Structure formats: C-alpha cells, structure tokens
C-alpha cells in the first residue's frame, strides 16, 4: 500500500515537471490558428512544421547552436586540463603560497559572474576581446570549482604510487600524465559533464560580452526571439524543443552514471 502511494506521489511530481514540455512540444507543431483557437486544440493533425522551418532556416538558431556547442566543448576541454593540473598541484605538491591560494580560491568559489559584469566587461574591453570567441571562452576558465573537484579525487590516490614512479625517474609531468590522470578518470567525466552543462546554460555573460549576430550563443539568441519578434508561441516552442534536444539525448544516455557520480563526487567534500 505504501508502495502505491509512493509511486502515486512520484508520478504526480514527474507529471508536474514534465507536463510543460509535452505541452510545448505539441505547441511547436501547431500553426497560429491552432495555437490561438478556443476551445483549445491539444494536438494538431497534421502537424505544422512551419515553426521549425522558420527556426532552422530563417533565424540565427543553427548558428547559435553551433556557437554554444563550440564554446562549451572548448571550455570543457581546456578546463579538464587546467583544473586537473592545478588540482594535482594543490593535492600533492608542495610550494610556498599553497595554503593562501587554496583559501583564496575557496572564498571566491561562489562569486558569480552577475556581480562582476561591470569590471569583467571593462577588462574584456581593454583586452580587445569583446565580441570575439575568446570573450566567451576565457572568463569561464577562472572558475575554481573544477580545481577543488580534481583535488578531492587526486587526494584519494595513495602517495606510494607517485613515490614508486619517482624512484624510477618519471618526471613530474609524467607522473601527472601517466599515473594520476588515468586513475581519476571518473572525476574527469563528472567534471566534464558539469562544465559542459553549465556552459550550455550560461546566459548573462554571453549577453554582455558578445553582441554581434554571428557570435550569439543559444541562450542569448533565444532570448532575442522574445525581445524582437513579438509574441510567437509556436516559434518559441520550437526553439525550446530544439534547444533541449542535445541535452536530453546526452543526458538520458548517461543518466545513471551522471546522477550517481556527480552527486557522490560533490558530496565527498
């Protein structure tokens, strides 16, 4: 009996969370007539593809998607290297200032872009990178979350493993590359997923940093649909659906691994 109640409650929660999406999917396939029809038309048959056509061929959407995927992948790739190196240094190497830097990074960990828009824009402007891909790629590299995550994973590796390698004369970089990295692969996967998702959804900085049409990322471009085109539920629905396709596919495929690992890894701290 308790089982049934539990399931009912979960079904309710799932429906509340998922229903809007189905509604939107249906709406994306409706034309203006069906959308603004009363009594409401639940599903239009035959489905109307005009919204998608308009989205894919007549707006900047493909470009926005490409930009986002490009930026997200580049940031992810770079951060995996940078953060794992820094995490290794903080976890296993000794040098002056290590404590100070660690505390500094920890303190600024939660500081968001939103509060730093003004000076960040000024810095980007002075570096002449506004309205370039660099403006989208470089600032996110500053976030220290990945460093802490990597540090946590690397701390778990036994010290004798490096000692054994040092005895054989493996260079410090060799130890990092051949011994440490292969053994923290799960951590790298978690980090990659976190960073990619975060970059995919990033809005406020790209909004400020790039204003040229061909540099707009997905979130900014879609926001522009709202600002410029007036009310167009059909187009907006199509945009919503298309935005979510990559993430939905990616996520559903990795679902079990992603959820278990990312939360477990985060909680280890």
């Amino acid at each position, binding site marked *: 009996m308790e089982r049934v109640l539990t399931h009912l409650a979960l079904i309710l929660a799932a429906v509340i969370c998922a229903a809007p999406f189905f509604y939107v999917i249906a709406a994306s396939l409706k034309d203006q007539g069906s959308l603004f029809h009363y009594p409401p038309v639940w599903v239009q048959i035959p489905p109307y593809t005009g919204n998608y056509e308009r989205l894919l061929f007549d707006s900047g959407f493909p470009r926005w998607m490409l930009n986002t995927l490009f930026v997200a992948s580049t940031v992810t790739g770079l951060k995996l290297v940078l953060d794992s190196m820094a995490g290794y240094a903080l976890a296993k190497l000794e040098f002056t200032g290590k404590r100070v830097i660690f505390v500094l990074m920890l303190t600024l960990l939660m*500081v968001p872009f939103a509060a730093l828009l003004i000076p960040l824009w000024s810095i980007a402007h002075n570096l002449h990178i506004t309205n370039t891909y660099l403006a989208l790629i470089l600032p996110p590299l*500053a976030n220290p979350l990945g460093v802490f995550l990597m540090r946590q994973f690397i701390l778990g590796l036994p010290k004798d493993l490096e000692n054994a390698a040092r005895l054989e004369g493996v260079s410090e970089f060799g130890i990092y590359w051949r011994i440490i990295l292969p053994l923290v692969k799960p951590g790298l996967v978690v980090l990659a997923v976190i960073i990619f998702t975060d970059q995919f959804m990033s809005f406020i900085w790209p909004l400020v940093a790039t204003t040229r049409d061909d540099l707009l990322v997905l979130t900014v471009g879609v926001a522009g649909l709202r600002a410029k085109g007036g009310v167009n539920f059909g187009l907006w629905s199509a945009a919503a659906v298309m935005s979510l396709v990559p993430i939905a596919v990616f996520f559903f495929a990795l679902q079990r691994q992603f959820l278990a690992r990312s939360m477990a890894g985060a909680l280890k701290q």
Partner: protein
Amino acid sequence: MSTNLSLATSINTAPQAAGTIAASSRHRLSPEEHRRLARQRRLRRELTGWAFLVPMFVFFVVFLLAPVILVFWWSTQEGSLTTGTEFVGLDNFRRLPRQIDAPIAIRNTLRFTLMSIPVTLIIALGVAMLLARVGRGGSVYRFLVYFPALVPGVVAGLIWIFLTSVDFGLFNTALRSVGVDPVVWLGPKSALQVLAALDVWRSVGFWAIFFLAAIIGLPRELYQAAELDGANGWQRFHRLTLPLLRRVILFAVVVATIFGLQVFDTALILTEGGPGTATLTVVYRIWTYIFGSTDKVGYGAAMSVALLVAILILTVIQLRLLRGQRGED
C-alpha cells in the same frame, strides 16, 4: 642469470659484525654546505608546483580575482564604461537608496529568495525521500524530475510565458476545464510569485537528486534499529533523517540562496522586469546600468558590490558551518 650478477657471487659471505663505523672516509657537511645544496632542490620543487598551478591561476586572477577587486573601485566612480569616469568616493552608496528602483530591486530579490527557497528545498527533500524508497526502479522518475534543471533559464522563461498566457496557456486552460475563472498570472501583484514558482519548478529536481545522494549515504542500520524500537515513518524522519542531514540541508540552504540572489534570466524573459517593476531584480538592475542608462555605471557597481558582499558573507558562513560540523562528526 646474466653477467651483471658476477659481483654478487663474490659478496655472499656475511660480513663481520661491526656495529660501529670503522675508519669511515666519509665526512660530515657543514650546515652552510647543506643549505647551498638544498637550495637547488628546493627551487626545483617550488617551480614544479607553480608550473602546474599557474595556467589555471592566471585565468583565476585575471577573470575572477581582478574583477572582484575592481568592482570596488568602479563603485567609487561616476560615469560610463566607455567614455570615462571620475572619482566620487562613497557617494554612489549613499545615493543608492534614492536611486530609481534600486531599493525595489533589492526588495524583490529578497522576497523572491524567501519565497522560492524554502518551498524548493522542502519539496525536494520530500521527493528525495520518495525516490529513496523506490530505489533502482525510479530512474525514470529521476530523469523526469531532474530534467527542468537542465533547461536554460531563457528557455524556461519562454515556456512559462506560454504556460501563463491568459487566454491560451496551459494553466488557465486547466483552470477553465474545472470551472475556475482564469487568472492573470503575470499581473503586478502575482508576477513575482509566478517567477518564484518557475524557480521552484526548475530547481526541485536538482536538489532532490542532491538530497537523494545524501540519503543513500546514511547508514541503514540506524533505521533498522529505529524500526525495531518501534518508531514510525514520521518519527524516523523527524528524529533520524533530519538531524543526520542537518549539514547537507544547511549547505543546500546557503548554496540555493546564493543562486537565488542572482535571479535574472527568467525575470528578463518572463516579464522583462515587469509589469512595472514587479519582477525587477538586483542583477537585472545592474545589467541595465551597463547597457541602459550608460552614465550610471557607478551605481551598477555599487549594487554589484552589495551583491558580492552578501554572497561572500554567505560563503564564509557556509565554510564556518562546514568546518564546525566536521569537528563534531
């Protein structure tokens, strides 16, 4: 084996027991010599450590540390980002309460946070308990519940504009179908609440999974012992789960608050800060100071400083809490 062992065969006899040093030709080194030789080794070690840290650290300094420091400087300026500024000391802060909409933005943001976070976390905790009960079979639930968290705020905003459309949105259609009058969801009195509801819808899944991982980590024996002692479900929750999860819940409260204070994209898309200033938030105001009234950059910076300080305080509280708790565990 190989010829390399030819030496070994000649040293097989055990040497004479000699505990003390017989006329050793090795000598001791003075402390200065040690220091000199150690310097090279020390240098190499320092360099290695820094070499690994520096690439990331450079970006950290340029794009995080420097802006944090600079925002304070900017808050003492008056002017615009592009045409130059002049120093005005703390005037911006003094005049802030009288600046258009600044107090409203702050009030809205705080009300929003207070509305959305407790609701989000309580529901999330409940959902997490349910998911824990269901275990493996709940992967579909987990996916569906978590999915809204993956939606960019902008897209969520678009979806909800549609949902809350007075004549054609899902909400009012549902209401009408049970005979209730349609509601103007995004009216001046209710827009902020709807914004909060949007945030709850988006965030519940994330925190539910977070709490789920924590719950899974709890020792099962405690619950079995409690059941044997006759505790029912509510008692187990109240006296076992809550205290055990205290640290996790506090962490969630602080982190959720930090995120809540930064609400912007949904406000921008859903209502563009309106109607009027009903959903004007702090970050929204800051943003308009950059691209809107272009000579008020100092005010924007002042508000940024306020936001920054608030978040830093929250961070410190959280670190203190974590460290304190760890000592108790």
